[in-house]
């Protein structure tokens, strides 16, 4: 058992995001993020956490996404990796948790007084969010291919059929809380990489490379560099987040 005191991931509002746009108006009901090598992370005292997250917003109402009373009209969910003082941990959040993170343990269930490490450096991971139109069920997945451990959570969200597109709330997101008085934590041995992201098309249920994407920074101050300095590649070729440029240019 573990009581976490850190504030966790919220809507994409401070970080670097690769969003699923609506340029091609492709209807999707699933999103997936592959991290082939879990980054080597060392917590730096005095700095906050980092996170690599997969976000999904229910198509329709786009406000009240972190307000439980707006559920199920509004729904937002995220799942991914948090890097903090305990190492790399799986986490999820949704509208009913007020977007506050819930930690997931998938590998270590014995010796719970210690800090479990569901993802070790180099582990091959998949995160996924899907919506089943026939049952209105959202399922969040985290799968450690290296260890064969998997985790999932399902929730019935009435009148769900598609993920919203053209919003940073349906996206791959690199987040740092940027705690006031501290910079972005550069605790990575090498820049973190999201190797691929995929879309599940409502038209045939198949998984495909994202048909397009938009890349932006959120609340990066002063933000004098271009997005290409913070992020290179795509969800097809692999997204590499340039932590040193982010750290240098997006500090408070």
């Amino acid at each position, binding site marked *: 058992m573990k009581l976490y005191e850190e504030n966790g991931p919220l809507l994409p509002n401070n970080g670097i995001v690769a969003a699923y746009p609506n340029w091609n108006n492709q209807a999707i009901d699933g999103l997936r993020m592959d991290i082939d090598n879990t980054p080597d992370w060392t917590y730096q005292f005095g700095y906050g956490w980092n996170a690599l997250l997969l976000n999904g917003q229910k198509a329709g109402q786009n406000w009240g996404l972190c307000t439980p009373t707006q559920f199920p009209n509004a729904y937002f969910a995220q799942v991914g990796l948090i890097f903090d003082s305990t190492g790399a941990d799986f986490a999820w959040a949704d509208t009913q*948790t007020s977007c506050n993170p819930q930690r997931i343990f998938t590998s270590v269930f014995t010796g719970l007084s210690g800090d479990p490490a569901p993802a070790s450096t180099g582990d091959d991971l998949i995160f996924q969010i899907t919506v089943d139109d026939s049952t209105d069920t959202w399922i969040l997945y985290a799968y450690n291919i290296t260890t064969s451990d998997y985790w999932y959570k399902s929730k019935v969200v009435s009148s769900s059929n598609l993920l919203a597109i053209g919003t940073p709330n349906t996206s791959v997101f690199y987040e740092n809380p940027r705690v006031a008085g501290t910079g972005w934590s550069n605790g990575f041995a090498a820049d973190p990489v999201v190797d691929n992201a995929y879309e599940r098309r409502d038209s045939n249920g198949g998984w495909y490379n994202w048909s397009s994407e938009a890349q932006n920074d959120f609340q990066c101050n002063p933000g004098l560099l271009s997005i290409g300095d913070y992020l290179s590649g795509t969800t097809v070729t692999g997204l590499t987040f340039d932590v040193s440029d982010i750290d240098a240019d997006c500090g408070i």
Partner: protein
Amino acid sequence: MTSKTIKTILFAGLIAAMILPFSMVDFADADKVNDKDKNVKAIEKEAKNTSKQLTKADKENLDQKIKSTKKVQDLLKGKNVVLIDESYHGNLLELEANPDTPLDIIMHYEVDGQPFTVVVDGTTNEI
């Protein structure tokens, strides 16, 4: 095609490349995902099957069991404890070897507004 025409096309292509913002990336050819699909599909199937197993009554019973456990009571004494949701953990290799292997249940709470996680071992039922 004349050299002038080719130059015009190249120039137009260069201008187009300059106009298009770097951040707008459009992938014309989407390749269907093949790798890792087998395992992901197995997990999806398992998730669909297993998520039906925990009834509301089961969840309430588990919640009561957790809250009556001494180590939980000691840790949470005097605090506001709210059950948020449950999730599940399994191991694909174990499941392939024995399809009847029960999944671990992860109970997610908020304790005075902070997340709190309790894992119930699917095999031993231990908290």
